[in-house]
């Protein structure tokens, strides 16, 4: 048991260190607030501040693809859709994530957690046989 906790502790430590080193603090301060500019995102913003990932992942770490082109393509699509929806109204309340964006998010989990989950996730990330992370870890990003 002792060994396990030491290992877990250091793994988490490295994770945090890597994050801070690579991403910088700007993500933490600016970006989530950019999303929360929209009042309909307040709930997720509040939830994110109380959830386990607030110190390690921002909105876009989970909601935008981790490659450059995918990231900006997704932001364009979502930006358009959400602005439109925001202006026109008529979206479901509570808001529900779309299939496409859920796949983006699942890929984000795997991007950061590849090491931990490789043994249980034998197939191509996002492939047909993939295990949905959110099925068990629904609340990591923000409490619902």
């Amino acid at each position, binding site marked *: 048991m002792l*060994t*396990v906790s030491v*290992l*877990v502790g250091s*793994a988490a430590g490295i994770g945090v260190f890597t994050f801070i080193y690579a991403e910088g603090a700007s993500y933490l301060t600016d970006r989530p607030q950019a999303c929360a500019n929209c009042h309909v995102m307040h709930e997720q913003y509040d939830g994110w501040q109380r959830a386990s990932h607030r110190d390690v992942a921002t909105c876009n770490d989970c909601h935008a693809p981790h490659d450059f082109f995918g990231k900006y393509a997704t932001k364009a699509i979502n930006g358009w859709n959400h602005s439109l929806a925001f202006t026109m109204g008529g979206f479901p309340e509570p808001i529900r994530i779309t299939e496409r964006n859920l796949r983006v998010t699942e890929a984000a989990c795997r991007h950061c957690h590849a*090491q*931990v*989950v*490789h*043994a*249980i996730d*034998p*197939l*191509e990330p996002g492939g*047909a*046989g*993939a*295990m949905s992370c959110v*099925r*068990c*870890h*629904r*609340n990591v990003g923000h409490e619902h």
Partner: protein
Amino acid sequence: NIFQHKQEARHPFFRVVELTDDIDDPAVWGKNFPLQYDGYKRTSDMVRTRYGGSEAMPRTPTQADPRSVVAQSRLEEDPRLRKIWAGYAFATDFREERGHAYMLTDQLYTERQQVVKQPGACLNCHASMVTAYRKAGDGDMFRGFEVICRTPYAEARPLVEHPVTCIDCHDPGTMALRVTRPAFIEGMRAYKASQGVKDYDVNTMATRHEMRSFVCGQCHVEYHFAGEGKRLTYPWHNGLKADEILAWYDQSGFKDWVHADSGAPMLKAQHPEFELWNQGVHARAGVSCADCHMPYQRVGAMKISDHHIRSPLLNINAACQTCHKASESELLARAETIQGRTQSVRNLAMDAVVELIADIVAARDGGATDAQLGVARDFHRKAQFLLDFIEAENSSGFHADQEAVRVLSLSLDYARRGQRALRGLPTGATAATE
């Protein structure tokens, strides 16, 4: 094989041995996957929960039965069981089930073996069968299955060596899950046909997620031996619900034995975990057997499936709390509330069935003819099967709480109607199913 390549590229495990479909020894597989093997070996632990797990009862080994520890006797806990099973092997010996490590010895030494000559079909669920089936069928699993089913147990027993093991659930090349039991393949085909899906093949058509329950459904199901060939058969031709299964048994005229007291043609239900789970909200929500009974555990920097298969109530943190944000004690209380309710209705239904048996006996002693007893005996058969279905199911109703009690109330109603039948009163329309 592309899959294999990717697997290797991403898996930093040491391929110590090359696994093939001829190797069934788990210790060999364990060389490649030592963490899973460690868990697997721990299924020999015995710990009680309020309604499940198992208790280690010391016994003095004899020549006929060398076991020094067995699980508690269910017949001693509840003497009514002897009455409802009068005339059948289960009235001789029936124990709480325990971990996978014991399956082969418990089957060999149960006193039920001394009362009835059993066929090799029994082995399907108590041993690693992949190599045995293939050998007996000259490479053809289905042929081997047929051969072993009809071979007497005592002759078939030496063909197997291990309890269920890696090879029964995993493809040795890719480690992907697979179904290796012909009876499950056929049972699912029949079930899917009843739902309008033709030619269903579980190994090619099931999702990875479904396989996380199907590997368990190979054994944790209601079954019977069909025909002279003693072909192991799962009775899902009308559906998976208890009353649908009963209807199918009634259609096909099958019986397990004739009740020693009431003279009714009886059915014995056994461990329908897979069937009951299917009716529950967890199954609807896509929660598989492995999610609760083999939850992920973190070992070092890696996350693996806990191969120490056991009661999730011994492991609530990993088994439940990832999905449910409630305390361990609260989750335990929720499960035990469900189980307690199920037990209370099970007790009502069991009393009713026992009384019906007594009533039939009294009527017969009072001179009633077989013709006059026919309807009441049919109600006895039905009431008892439905009671036994929930009694034999090992989660005490947890796998589908409302459904479990629905089935028990059908049982109660049949018992009631049997008692009316004895008095020549109308017994009402056939019970409404949902």
